[in-house]
């Protein structure tokens, strides 16, 4: 029934060996009790976020695999379908997200240098840019809805069988696709909605957390030395940006020369 510690006489390891002592007042309020030091907590949570991002990489990975295969099989359909996406909206969205990554990185810097107002500004800007991204996405999705390019919802092959009748296709001088290849444009749009939709879902979650963070930042929760929450969220946000960088290149920029 004895629960003696392992090494015989206690070594003088200072704060470490006294972990079980309930009278330690030296650790900050945001340190959880199962961690020995704040550094350990920061390291552990940071590593945990990286591992979570790895799972996200593999999750999107399945979609990228599907995309790679079908783009190779149905290249003409993918080219024609990608012309239906407005490269200006796509580029604008890319700029918006890159800017938001910048403001997020600046937010982390503000948290590290204990600039409460700076942090709030950066988080708010990131929030606004995120909303702008979603707004532009809504405009794009709405356009697809109008032109009946949503798979499974009265999908129309009109633009691909007769490109002359379609403003976007005519701009690129697309030639009409044979019927079976035209049908495969629906596969492109499925992947478009699946991948950008999944991405948008991650944006929505990120924006929601940003909202929470702005409130907490106001109370000084992240400018008292407790940087990890902002830092780890920043990792998430940058990851979502990276996914978009690839989506933009793969979905919008297949081939716009004619």
């Amino acid at each position, binding site marked *: 029934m004895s629960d003696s510690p392992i090494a015989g006489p206690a070594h003088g390891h200072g704060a470490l060996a006294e972990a079980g002592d309930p009278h330690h007042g030296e650790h900050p309020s945001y340190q959880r009790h199962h961690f020995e030091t704040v*550094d350990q907590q920061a390291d552990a949570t940071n590593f945990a976020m*990286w591992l979570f991002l790895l799972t996200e990489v593999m999750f999107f990975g399945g979609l*990228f695999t599907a995309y790679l295969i079908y783009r190779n099989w149905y290249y003409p359909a993918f080219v024609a379908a990608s012309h239906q996406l407005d490269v200006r909206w796509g580029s604008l969205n890319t700029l918006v997200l890159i800017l938001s990554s910048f403001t997020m*990185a600046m937010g982390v810097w503000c948290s590290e240098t204990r600039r409460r107002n700076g942090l709030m500004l950066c988080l708010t800007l990131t929030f606004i840019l995120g909303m702008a991204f979603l707004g532009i996405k809504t405009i794009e999705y709405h356009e697809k809805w109008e032109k009946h390019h949503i798979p499974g919802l009265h999908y129309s092959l009109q633009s691909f069988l007769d490109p002359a009748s379609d403003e976007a296709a005519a701009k690129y001088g697309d030639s009409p696709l044979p019927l079976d290849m035209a049908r495969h444009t629906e596969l492109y749009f499925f992947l478009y909605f699946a991948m950008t939709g999944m991405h948008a879902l991650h944006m929505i979650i990120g924006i929601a957390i940003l909202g929470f963070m702005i409130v907490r930042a106001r109370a000084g929760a992240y400018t008292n030395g407790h940087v990890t929450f902002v830092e780890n969220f*920043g990792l998430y946000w940058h990851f979502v940006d990276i996914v978009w*960088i690839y989506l933009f290149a793969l979905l919008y*920029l297949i081939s716009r*020369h004619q």
Partner: protein
Amino acid sequence: MSEQTNHTEHEHHVTSPTVYIVILFSLLVGTALTVWASFIDLGPWNPVIALAIATSKAMLVVLFFMGVKYSTKLTKLTVIAGIFIFLGLISMTLSDYMSRAWGRW
């Protein structure tokens, strides 16, 4: 790799805003470049260039915005492990498709 938890100094590298601004502009330039390149007919090189630019942009985000350049070896190893398995999924799956059904259908 035994973590010595008895350092009190937080060896956390703080990247300066100047670096962030430089990276921001690099990313914006990269975006312009890749859009421009998609309007030029480079034959089979179009997707290669697009992916190369995208990968460079991603690397800038990973190294500087996400701080991996100044991170621990463990973080770097984690990033590499993720990329490795992701590439494994894609390349091994493609090895099946490339050997039976590749090119225009």
